[in-house]
């Protein structure tokens, strides 16, 4: 329609008098300007909110992070200017290093486990089986419940004295655990049980951290499954049939067809899950009664404590910026590392 309008005058330029053509051009320009104006108008409400509450704050955080900002009245002079002082303090802080280490452990557990389970579930659900919808809804349920309610329930399940998790362990003849209150490493605990002394960095992430990681996987695996399932259904069935005629077994089908063709979906999930794990806050806050054991204090909790309990706003803003930078770099890296291996089935 609009293309036709643009082409029309050019196809018969000599038959139209110059004056009419100029008039037409002006009218068209006005129409286009009016359309553009309307376009900006339609975007305005969303754009305004986005800029005000999601984009500008990033720049203000950068500004704030350059000050020793504690409690202040004027937002443009939040305290003594200290340049990169907050960042210097951050990089030399043992507490920050530890919290970052905990976050990395947390991501290292939740991302692979979450992805593997999602692919397994999707693979199992990608068939015409009875009760498919029921399974899908059940697996997705945790994702729509509130994290606070879920954390309250899981804390009850993992309650050290009368929780059902320890009852199951006792029934299996295993010692009861402190779960979300356990600062000691999981490998150390296993070693203790088997009589092997393990200490230092070998003791691994704290059981508290692993407990929250398992809850976090429970929470998000349904979301990942739904997306992985959508990815699976885009793979043409003929491919499997052709391979089956060639005598390929189930594992070969999975390795040589499913996995390569699922890589775009997996990349998406990898990025989303990594970002999610680096931002995880609610479960840590709620399952540990707002005061996590040192082995489970992640960066977001450190930021919260610095910002809203100690009111080191400038320092907390710097933590946020560093977290942002890490997430940004990780996402970039994941895109780069996987791009060469991504296969699109077009």
């Amino acid at each position, binding site marked *: 329609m609009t293309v036709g309008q643009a082409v029309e005058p050019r196809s018969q330029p000599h038959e139209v008098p110059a004056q009419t053509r100029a008039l037409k051009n002006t009218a068209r320009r006005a129409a*286009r300007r009016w*359309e*553009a104006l*309307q*376009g*900006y*108008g*339609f*975007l*305005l*409400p*969303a*754009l305004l*909110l*986005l800029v005000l*509450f*999601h*984009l500008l*704050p*990033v720049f203000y955080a950068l500004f*704030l992070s350059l000050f020793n900002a504690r409690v202040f009245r004027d*937002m443009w002079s939040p305290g003594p200017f200290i340049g990169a002082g907050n960042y210097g303090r951050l990089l030399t802080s043992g507490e920050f290093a530890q919290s970052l280490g905990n976050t990395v452990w947390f991501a290292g557990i939740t991302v692979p486990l979450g992805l593997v389970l999602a692919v397994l579930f999707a693979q199992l*659900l990608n*068939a015409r*089986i009875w*009760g498919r*919808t029921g*399974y*899908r*809804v*059940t*697996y997705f349920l*945790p994702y729509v*419940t*509130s*994290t*606070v*309610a879920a954390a*309250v*329930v899981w804390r*009850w399940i993992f*309650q050290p004295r*009368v929780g059902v998790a320890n*009852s199951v362990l006792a029934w299996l003849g295993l010692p009861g655990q402190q779960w979300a209150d356990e600062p000691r490493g999981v490998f150390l605990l296993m070693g203790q049980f088997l009589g092997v002394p393990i200490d230092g960095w070998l003791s691994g992430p704290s059981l508290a951290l692993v407990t929250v990681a398992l809850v976090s996987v*429970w929470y998000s695996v349904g979301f990942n499954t*739904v*997306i992985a399932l*959508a990815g699976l259904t885009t793979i043409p069935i003929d491919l499997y049939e052709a391979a089956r005629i060639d005598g390929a077994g189930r594992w070969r089908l999975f390795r040589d067809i499913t996995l390569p063709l699922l890589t775009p979906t997996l990349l*998406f999930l990898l990025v989303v899950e990594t*970002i999610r794990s680096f*931002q995880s806050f609610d479960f840590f806050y*709620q399952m540990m*009664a707002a005061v996590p054991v040192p082995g489970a204090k992640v960066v977001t909790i450190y930021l*919260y404590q610095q*910002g809203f309990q100690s009111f080191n*706003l400038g320092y907390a803003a710097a933590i*946020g910026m560093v*977290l942002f930078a890490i*997430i940004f770099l990780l*996402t970039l890296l994941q895109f780069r590392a996987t791009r060469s291996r991504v296969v699109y089935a077009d």
Partner: protein
Amino acid sequence: MAVASMLPRAVHLPRSSDVARHAILLGFGFLMAFPFIWMLLTSFKPFEETLASPPTILPMSWRPENYAEAWRAANFPRFFMNSAIISLTTVGGTLLTSVLAAYGFARLRFPGRDALFLVFLGTMMIPQEVTLIPNFVLLANLPCPIPVDTICNPKGSGWFDTFTAVSVPWWVSVFSIFLLRQFFLGIPNDLWEASQLDGASHFGYLRRVVVPLSTPALLTVALYAFVQSWKSFLWPLVMTSRPDVRPIQVGLSTFALENGTYYHTLMAASAFTIAPVLIVFILIQRHFLESIARSGLKG
């Protein structure tokens, strides 16, 4: 085999691989559902029974009064009301801004449109933790045109500690704009041409043709906004300090931290906290899951 082929198609006998499939799915399904089951079972037990070790599975005596007690133990009616106000305004705001922006991106042509769309998508990468501290400061410095204490605070603390602070910043959702744009792009152009002949403006066409045609997508956007708003925690935790405006997640959190050992009422409180979202989700799960799935495809 011969018998199976004689049976009607619908009753075909399960193959061994189907049995294994169901066994694994049921096993994990039980793990996924267990917290919900355990929450419900505990919520009906008397306090003494929750202390039993090993625990009873079914309550020995059913005690539905736990729900009434939990409901009264903290100001849950107030928290529910607050959450309803916050979530419903967020749904309304998100629908409005998303429909307009999605239409702009899908139908109108103007300079910088594609660049703006990329900027919109890019903001999805900004983690909430980065904007938390600056927004805490910014909100307190926003002007207060309507001096009602649940909307904004005229005494110098701006929007801090109000419904506005918890709700308005989330009236924009890039995910929803993206979803609706895809949907609007699928509406045939003939409809616009026909409306134009009838003298319809873009806004009239959007209101009378596009919106009525997009009910499934709008439903998804509405549910998504509702769920996100209902379950959000860190934001209202930081942006509010008084129970009058705090939503139910923060209320439940405080209640749980203060009554940490009364698990029978805690489970009852958890149950009624998640009930609204669970009901809404189960009612329209098909639309919702399909839209979520579609969003990942072009990731």
